[in-house]
């Protein structure tokens, strides 16, 4: 039973905002457009690492370890598509 795109999108946005605010000592998270370069949001590697871990706790999977393809998403759309396309079978 895979998770829908809308559900993934809202979950990632919510947890991104949570991690961003925590890492930025309370500053509000920026809006994410499809073509937003994730690393240009001000979130650093540690923030992304925490995002991936919190998403794993929430969604029950980590697409980076499930993906057979070696890939690091650069934009928000790529990130979402990566999560959508690498759900557990």
């Amino acid at each position, binding site marked *: 039973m895979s998770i829908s795109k809308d559900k993934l999108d809202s979950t990632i946005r919510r947890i991104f905002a949570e991690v961003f605010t925590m890492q930025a000592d309370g500053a509000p998270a920026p809006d994410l457009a499809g073509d937003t370069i994730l*690393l240009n949001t001000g979130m650093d590697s540690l923030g992304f690492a925490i995002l991936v871990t919190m998403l794993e706790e929430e969604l029950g999977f980590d697409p980076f370890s499930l993906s057979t393809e070696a890939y690091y998403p650069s934009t928000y759309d790529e990130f979402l598509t990566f999560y959508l396309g690498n759900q557990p079978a």
Partner: protein
Amino acid sequence: MSFLDALAHVDPERRAIVTAAQTVRFADLVQAARGLAPALTGRHLVLNHPDLVQAVTLLAAADGQAATVALMSPQHAPQVLAPLMAELAPDLVLSLQGVALAAAGLQSAIAGDFAEIAVLLPPAPTQTAQDTAWVLTTSGTTSTPKLVQHSLSSLTRTTRSDTARGRGQVWGMVYDYTRFAGLQLVLQSLLSGACLVLPPQDVALDVQLQFLAQHGCTHLSATPTMWRKILMSPQGGSLPLRQITLGGEIADDTILASLARAYPTARLSHIFASTEAGVGFSVTDGKAGFPATYLTDPPAGIGLRIAEGRLWVRNDQVGAAYLDGRGAVSQDGWVDTGDMVEERDARVFFKGRESGVINVGGNKVHPEEVERVLLSHPMVQMARVYGKANPIMGALVMADIVPVADAPDTIRQEVTAYLRARLEKHMVPASLRLTNGFDVNAAGKITREG
């Protein structure tokens, strides 16, 4: 041959170091170091300056003259550094943190620029030139560092001093030069006559990558975490790389395959290095771990074996030693790296540190240090800290805690805020789980396996 003699063998007109502030040629470095060298004879020196040109000038002047040159990261807090420096009783410290170091109790002379050294240290006619000890610090930025003694020859064991080879090579520098990996990179670049490019610090990664691309960076060495960031960065693709090196963390197949695809013409190496053993070797087949054949047919100058599930190395040449003999590092020439390894399918894979130290993107975190801070919180009764594998940073710190009986519902937020005020970001557990109790092993210790 001293470092300075080696630099003098390079074409003097070649660029040696490019920073945002200046470009210096080999001739400039040699001239400045020659002027400085007589004042350093027999001296004990500490290098703590953030500027690479200052650092290299001092190192070139000191090697073969000074008794000791100790490299200490400008990223360490002055309160941590001052007692460590005092232990060495240096004649001179080169640092921009002079005021703070003096306030923290350091009594030595402190220069903010190498040009001030001749005033502070007049040449001493009674001193004689020495085989210089190069002293480096181990461990992370918060825990108390340990001092490890090397020499130029032990640091450059794997370096070929072939200045023809470096022609046209431009080495990017994203490491701290006071660290083992960073210093090796500086020495390798300069001794091969290549140009070393240091991007501006404290700016966005894209700006740093743009700077490296503009200066034609062909060789870049970084941690797997940094490489993942580079691949996620729009400027990453613009680097004209011919040699990609990964070190400081375990390189997995995903990052190696991604780099091979992003830079199809570049040579790809991942490095294993042990500061304690003063040993490093590289693997160039683009796959994680190293071939099991290295156990019987090791890279030149070293020996490798597996005992008690850990990797042991033997350095056939000069070995390193902790200063003051604290912690004998060598037994019959074999040094325990503390890295747990596993042999599988004719390959040896790294499984993490035996000590439980968590490598968060190249930063080493001692679980005990995080546990200590957790336990200092009045709502925490018991704490267990461990690492969890992570595809972006290699590993993250996780914690389970047993709260006190009357802990409020907001305990996780309160404890997290408490930790964030006391620990560096990468040391704060990414996840804090509440639990009722832990398994305790026969020795009465909480089991740490996550």
